[in-house]
């Protein structure tokens, strides 16, 4: 069964998955209803993608509690796409402000309802990682910026090349260069042949 996330999780995502797992399990232990809202999720799998971080965490529930990890064999039953500010605001707003659901949508909605029903101060749990989150975001932004710069440089190069080749016609294209090279070789061969013939004629004289 192929993995849905073949890439290697970095330290940041490892740490985040562990934190989310801890926060959920702690909340379930402290929940007055003893996590009753989650009882229907046993053996169900969820993919939660944070679009702003480009990161997917996989959640699933067993009789031992909630498990969170960075990879999952096969497909999750339901997929939730949101962003970190929406999760951080869940406690106050009672809903994920930006969310897209895929797969078993009623199941995904039920999970969001269940998450809203328990007391989790995501901001507090994730505040330990605020520095890392910022660093991650900065790193991500830097990498994106570098990639964009490279792409822009490539694009600028292509544009300049096309301008010089086709607009001003001061630079030959690759195919023109190839044709020129071929012509030089053919001319060289013809010159060599003529030289040989001339030499043969001179030898007869």
């Amino acid at each position: 069964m192929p993995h849905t996330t073949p890439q290697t999780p970095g330290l940041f995502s490892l740490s985040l998955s562990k934190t989310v797992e801890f926060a959920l399990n702690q909340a379930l232990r402290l929940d007055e209803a003893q996590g009753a809202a989650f009882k229907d999720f046993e053996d169900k799998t969820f993919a939660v993608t944070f679009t702003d971080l480009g990161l997917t965490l996989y959640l699933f529930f067993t009789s031992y509690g909630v498990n969170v990890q960075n990879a999952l064999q096969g497909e999750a039953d339901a997929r939730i796409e949101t962003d970190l500010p929406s999760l951080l605001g869940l406690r106050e707003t009672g809903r994920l402000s930006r969310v897209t659901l895929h797969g078993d949508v009623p199941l995904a909605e039920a999970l969001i309802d269940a998450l809203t029903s328990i007391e989790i101060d995501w901001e507090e749990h994730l505040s330990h990682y605020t520095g890392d989150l910022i660093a991650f975001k900065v790193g991500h932004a830097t990498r994106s910026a570098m990639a964009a710069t490279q792409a822009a440089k490539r694009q600028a190069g292509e544009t300049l090349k096309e301008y010089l080749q086709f607009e001003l016609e001061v630079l030959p294209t690759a195919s023109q260069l190839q044709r020129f090279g071929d012509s030089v070789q053919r001319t060289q061969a013809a010159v060599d042949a003529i030289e040989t013939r001339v030499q043969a004629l001179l030898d007869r004289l």
Partner: protein
Amino acid sequence: MNQSKKTIDFGFSEVPLEEKVKRVKGVFDSVAGKYDVMNDVMSLGIHRLWKRHTIELSGVRPGQTVLDLAGGTGDLTKAFAKRVGKSGRVVLADINESMVRVGRDRLINEGIAGNVEYTITNAEALAFPDNTFDLATIAFGLRNVTNKDKALAELYRVLKPGGQLMVLEFSKVTQPLLAKAYDFYSFNILPKMGKLIADDEASYQYLAESIRMHPDQDTLKQMMLDAGFDKADYLNMNEGIVALHRGWKY
């Protein structure tokens, strides 16, 4: 050649083939009680991160069947048991009875029961039918196996088609400067820590030597392919101090 005259490495020493099993058993009988403490001290707790990495990369899901070979004191078994849930099953297998006892007592005390089985088994002759497991792991155990090729072939046999083997093991450090520091640590500090904490310098000297004798990353990957795995790759952790090899059976 007569089987009894064949020799194999035991750390930096060469011992008769059948002698290695006994000696490895002796080492782990000796360290079993303090194995977890020593792992924490020796790796400064990083072994937990390596294992967490392995668990996360496994992509294990509820209902699956997992073999934790050389499972020892049950770190991975515990995590996998929580993940596969009651509809799944984890088998902690180890050749060393002392380690299995420590692991079983520890997991039961921590409330992990009902979906875990314990068995004493030789990695070279696994007592399971073909195509049994969705996932098999061997963490810090393969280097102690006498015939690694045979063990890898057995692991391939017991995996279901689509199943995955994960080998977490000390490996070859890729960064030259770190390699020197690591060598110094392994041969000068590690055995002394073993003496201090477990009162067993020789066993930890063996652990350091056995790490150096273990096949490097590319060699082990090729061994996995030779054993029948359809695909294999590896991931270095901490500059190759540890490598996680993965093999798939299709």
